[in-house]
């Protein structure tokens, strides 16, 4: 039974040492996480910036015009990346809920083997698997296509989704479903009104993993997409290779944007009590 946390009756004044420690921690976070973006931002507006200049000698909006301009691949790649990551996430949720339920709630013969096989893609080099899959995909007409890329992205994404959902269901009491059924709820109503709200934080956490993994996938997209499906990482790499630092920097910022946005939108599910449900502990 849960109890409401008692309101604190004694307020403890933070000691001086504590507050210094806190500011040091905040400082470290700012320096460690945000500072690396500063050079990116500067690079994206630079036109000429050679050693040993501290700042660019000439500034320009060229990179940003390219990213948001017409007739460029950047917006198209952004669209591809978004569609692929979203589709991969939704599919992995559809796989992760039943698979996580089976692993988290039930004991069955060969459970350890199933768990190992689900984890395998995180251990086996993706290149080894992708070559074989490529041949199969060519046969079924999935190579060089968007559905093919979505399917191949499920390989690295599914293990995380299933493991998160398994830990959600390990803490889940299926008696709530029995209770709902005796109260007259049909199977879909049980899922919608009882199961889904209970596992929702886990879906968000798993979905965040899935989205970010798919969003940043390079190798599998390159192999299965066959140059037809150009996502943001592919575009980013080609500019990085060609040495265009300004556009690379601008694309990097665009690339990071959605991930950070999703993280912020879902942060309330990642912290506090829900985090334990999500299986990643308190952040």
């Amino acid at each position: 039974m849960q109890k409401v946390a008692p309101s604190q009756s004694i307020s403890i004044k933070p000691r001086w040492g504590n507050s210094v420690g806190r500011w040091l921690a905040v400082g470290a976070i700012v320096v460690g996480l945000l500072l690396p973006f500063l050079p990116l931002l500067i690079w994206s507006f630079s036109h000429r910036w050679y050693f040993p200049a501290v700042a660019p000698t000439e500034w320009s909006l060229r990179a940003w015009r390219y990213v948001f301009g017409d007739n460029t691949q950047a917006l198209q790649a952004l669209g591809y990346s978004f569609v692929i990551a979203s589709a991969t996430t939704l599919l992995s949720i559809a796989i992760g809920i039943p698979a996580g339920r089976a692993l988290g709630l039930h004991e069955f013969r060969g459970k350890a083997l199933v768990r190992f096989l689900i984890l395998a893609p995180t251990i086996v080099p993706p290149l080894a698997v992708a070559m074989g899959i490529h041949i199969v995909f060519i046969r079924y007409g999935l190579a060089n296509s968007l559905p093919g890329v979505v399917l191949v992205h499920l390989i690295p994404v599914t293990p995380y989704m299933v493991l998160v959902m398994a830990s959600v269901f390990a803490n889940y009491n299926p008696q709530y479903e029995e209770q709902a059924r005796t109260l007259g709820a049909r199977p879909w109503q049980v899922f919608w009104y009882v199961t889904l709200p209970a596992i929702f934080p886990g879906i968000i956490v798993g979905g965040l993993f899935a989205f970010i993994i798919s969003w940043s996938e390079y190798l599998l997209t390159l192999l299965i997409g066959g140059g037809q499906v150009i996502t943001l990482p592919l575009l980013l790499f080609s500019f990085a290779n060609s040495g265009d630092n300004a556009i690379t920097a601008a694309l990097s910022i665009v690339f990071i944007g959605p991930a950070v946005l999703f993280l912020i939108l879902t942060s309330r599910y990642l912290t506090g009590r829900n985090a334990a449900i999500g299986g990643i502990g308190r952040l």
Partner: protein
Amino acid sequence: MTQVDLQKLTKIYPGSDSPAVHALSLTMPSGRITALLGPSGCGKTTALKMIAGLITPSEGNILFDGDSIVGVPTEKREVVMAFQNHLLFPHMSVSQNVGFGLKMRGLDRHTIQRRVSEMLDLVRLPGLDDRRPHQLSGGQQQRVALARALIVEPRVLLLDEPLSNLDAHLRGEMRELIHDVQQQFKLTTIFVTHDQEEAVVLADQIALLFEGQLHQYGPPQAFYERPLNERVARFFGGINFIPGYKRGSVIETGLGQLQCYSAALSDGAVVVTIRPENVAIGRNGSEINVAHGRVESSTYLGTHARFKVSVQAGNGHPPLVLEVVADASSIHLYPVGQTVKLYLPPEKIWLVPAED
């Protein structure tokens, strides 16, 4: 008003040798409270879940007013089960919890709201609509669970250990509430418990199960006055069991000859039993069914006193120990070591079959 019939209901779980419920046949009268009683693991909860439709029977049938409901899915059985741990949906408010069953049936919001507040009044919890389950006490949670079950007007109400999660003073209150509500709705109610006291105070009929098998079914008094075997008697606090041999109305025992009015068993080896509160201690006057013994220990229990008296049995038998419950003041009359006279009234003696 629904009569529930169980016909040779059997459940064998996969991988298990012995059935959890074995050929259970019971007729549970319409509009009454029936208790399924037994120690944990006796199959009583399995039986309850089979009635609810949450477990599929391996064999046998369940009838509601003569119609089999075995093929009917849980949500269409109109049977509501209230679980032991209340299981209030944590993401819903109290009123959403209570209104859940009506919402599933597609009723409109205003009707649900009206019925929910009526129901919260009935379980004496008005004004808690917007609370969350975790803000309620255990007793309040149980009332909400009861309201949520009653609001759908089920044909049969199933309760899993309805009083066991509550402390003593709440139990009495809850017992009254369940009783009042059941009377008001004339609801066929079946509940499961491991506590014979709980069964006795709440049920009209008790079915006692051991290892999935029905041992006795009847009104509560029958379990005290006319237990069918030693195990039933022991479960209901019987403690005095004296082996004997019955010839007509006389039983030869280690205490000597005992007269007895019970004619339930034929002549032969039997076990004589008498409840500790029915043994009279230190009374003069009677000539038959009398034994003399030594007080071995005594316990003062406030409202009464409990004695252990050992009686020398004849013919080389080991001494018999009888437990006696008497008036609290008698604790001073019979100190440990004193020899006392025990009287076993013939009308209070009951016979059960001798165990092999």
